[in-house]
């Protein structure tokens, strides 16, 4: 019998297995043990399957795509982080950042648990196919921008180590080359920013369909716009003014902080039209 309990159990199972995958990936990073990497990858895939089951069951139980509250959103966010990471791992054959990516997913799962609530039917405002278009675009884009931030963070750590010690050591030395990290961070942002733009545009079109205006300076709208401005600044600094390395990494961190603020802080602290998502 499928019920919400099944979904919760699968969710917990996925969370535990993601955690094991994190341990495995870090063990691999430290000792370059290929068989551990295979196990970690297997665990990620198994976790993703359980996670798929958890989302699928909740979908079936509630009768709508589970992206309508903070629990569902965070769970979906983690899901796309793992999925994106596995795609990147398969295409680049590089498993060194697995521990970080799965670590982010694990944290998001923990965060989701904090927001847990039983599935509720959709309020009339959300009963539209734009819910899927708008929210999924936003989720994928924030996952991508999160990965971009991860690359920027690793770049920063590596850069600091090189400046302090004059060479790369320990775990950091095993990561992709420093310039590759910088470039990867840019590339991921260059993928995430257009998606963020599309997400805002989809939101504007939906708002025009449902509320009679495409823009209303609702706090959530405004914060998505602020985030957009920060990344627009990042890209201009990078493309036109040639910023690289540390300063770009710091901008990427500010940008991702704004992404997180847009999704969580606005719902928790500021009331507005998007507060049904809380």
């Amino acid at each position, binding site marked *: 019998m499928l019920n919400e309990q099944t979904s919760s159990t699968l969710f917990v199972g996925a969370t535990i297995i993601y955690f094991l995958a994190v341990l495995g990936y870090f063990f691999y990073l430290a000792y370059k043990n290929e068989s551990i990497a295979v196990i970690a990858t297997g665990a990620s895939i198994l976790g993703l399957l359980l996670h798929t089951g958890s989302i699928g069951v909740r979908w079936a139980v509630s009768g709508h795509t589970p992206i309508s509250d903070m629990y569902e959103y965070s769970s979906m966010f983690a899901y796309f982080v793992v999925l994106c990471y596995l795609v990147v791992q398969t295409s680049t054959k590089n498993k060194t950042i697995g521990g970080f990516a799965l670590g982010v997913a694990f944290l998001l799962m923990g965060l989701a648990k904090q927001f847990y609530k039983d599935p*509720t*039917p959709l*309020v*009339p*405002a959300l*009963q*539209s196919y*734009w819910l899927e278009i708008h929210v999924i675009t936003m989720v994928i884009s924030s996952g991508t921008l999160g990965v971009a931030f991860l690359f920027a963070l690793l770049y920063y750590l590596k850069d600091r180590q090189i400046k302090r010690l004059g060479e790369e050591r320990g775990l950091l030395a095993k990561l992709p080359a420093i*310039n*590759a990290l*910088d*470039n990867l961070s*840019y*590339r991921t942002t*260059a*993928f995430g*920013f*257009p998606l963020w*733009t*599309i997400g805002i*545009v989809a939101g*504007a*079109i939906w708002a*025009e*369909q*449902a*509320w*009679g*205006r*495409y823009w*209303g*300076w*609702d*706090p959530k709208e*405004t*914060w998505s*716009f*602020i985030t957009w*401005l*920060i990344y*627009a*600044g990042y890209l*201009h*600094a*990078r*493309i*036109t*003014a*040639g910023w*690289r390395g540390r300063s770009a990494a710091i901008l990427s961190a500010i940008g991702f902080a704004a992404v997180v603020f847009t999704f969580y802080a*606005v719902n928790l602290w*500021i*009331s*507005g039209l998007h507060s049904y998502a809380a």
Partner: protein
Amino acid sequence: MAKEIAAEPVAELTVPQRVWRWFRSMRTALVLVLILAVVSIIGTLLPQYGLNEEGIKGFSQSYPALSTLFHYIGFFSVYSTWWFYVLIAMLFTSLIACIIPRTESFISKVKSNPKTPASERFISNLQNKAGFAVALSESTALDKVRQTLKSKRYKIHTFDDRPNEVYAEKGRYGDLGSLIFHYMFILMLIGIIFGKTRGFDNYATVIEGQYFTENPFGYDQIKKGPFFNDQTDHTNFKFKLDDFQVTYQPTGQPKDFVSKVTVFEDGKVVHKQNVEVNEKLVWDGVKIYQSSYGWAPRLTLFKDKKKVYDQPSVFSGSAQSANGQIQSPSGDFAAEVVFVPDLQEQNGQLSAGSYFLNNPAVYVTAYSYAKGEKKIFEGAIKLKGTKDLGQGYKLSFPEVKEWSGFQVVKDPGVPAIYTAFGLGVIGLYITFYFSRRRIWAITVPGEQGKTKVLIGGIAEKNKGAFEYEFSNLAEQVKMNLSKK
């Protein structure tokens, strides 16, 4: 967003030239964007008019002095203050100042292939370069370079008069994406201004069985643009609210609320539709959105057996309990009325129950003004009931209807804005996936009969990423050259 401008003697510049120069600078643009971000943040941290008026009241009570200052500056209506508009105007000036020179340089660049032959010195001055000495003939070596470039999807140009040179490029129209994206903002601004000045955003409540007419008298609230003419620009079409229905989830939250409407033109039925939250009605360029709803009890007032008032009226409040007033036409009778759909009576105590029409009743407090204000009645009247209120007044409650609140919007700027959205997405796609990269390769005779292959390249955007790409490319060229 423009590149650095060659230093000119500043003294010779007039003031407008200097201002224009300031607007052309990338730094100005970034500073303006930063200010816009900060100002927008203020607007989300402080309550705003039109979004959270309760919050403004609360803030004013807690911090009276600060709120006076904030009112004066406009911090409670950030997005409609004069200084916000000035900021937007400055941003657009900067945008235009940046894209004009970029458009010019795009046009001149896109037409040309390099005219001067690439020399050893030219390549050594490029940002990215590599050189290899190989035991191949010059033409074979160049062929291999071409092969590698082709496999990387570069477009190859060969010059008849320069057999030892290859020029290749990728993403020649890359800059077009950025131009489209930036021009898109101008279109969007035009759309916003056009829509806001020539449109309206009104609100109308309609009771079941009644008509709405799209003219100034049909509305409860009017918010119109300065260039919308209330006398001539209304469409005057008419619709009837046949029925309104709300269904609830078991949790008590509304599941659906639906207005069934019939549109009339010249007295004839032309359209029937259910208007719901995500299902607007569009007629003659006017959009009608389901916005709110409530109870509309019909009350009939008799004075000395003569009917003086008989109509349903809009009550506001919650689904369980809503308030309204009635007044006799002569003005010597008025009543405060509370409507409850499910009146609960326990030990003589009256209270509101559910939102279902289980036991509808109105609780009436009636006043007579014939000889000064005097309360003449207080008590409940159930549906289909009648009560004597005293002084010859009788009130009956024959039926209860519902009203539906519609947001009625005309925004002629929307097509321009949607076009801008589309262009923006296309522009971004081109910008990020078509960056113009240029590669030159030449061969020169080297030592011991070997051939020296020199390869160099530049990118116009994202030079960092290109550096990485170029070193990969050079590696592949090297590998290909050493293959038999």
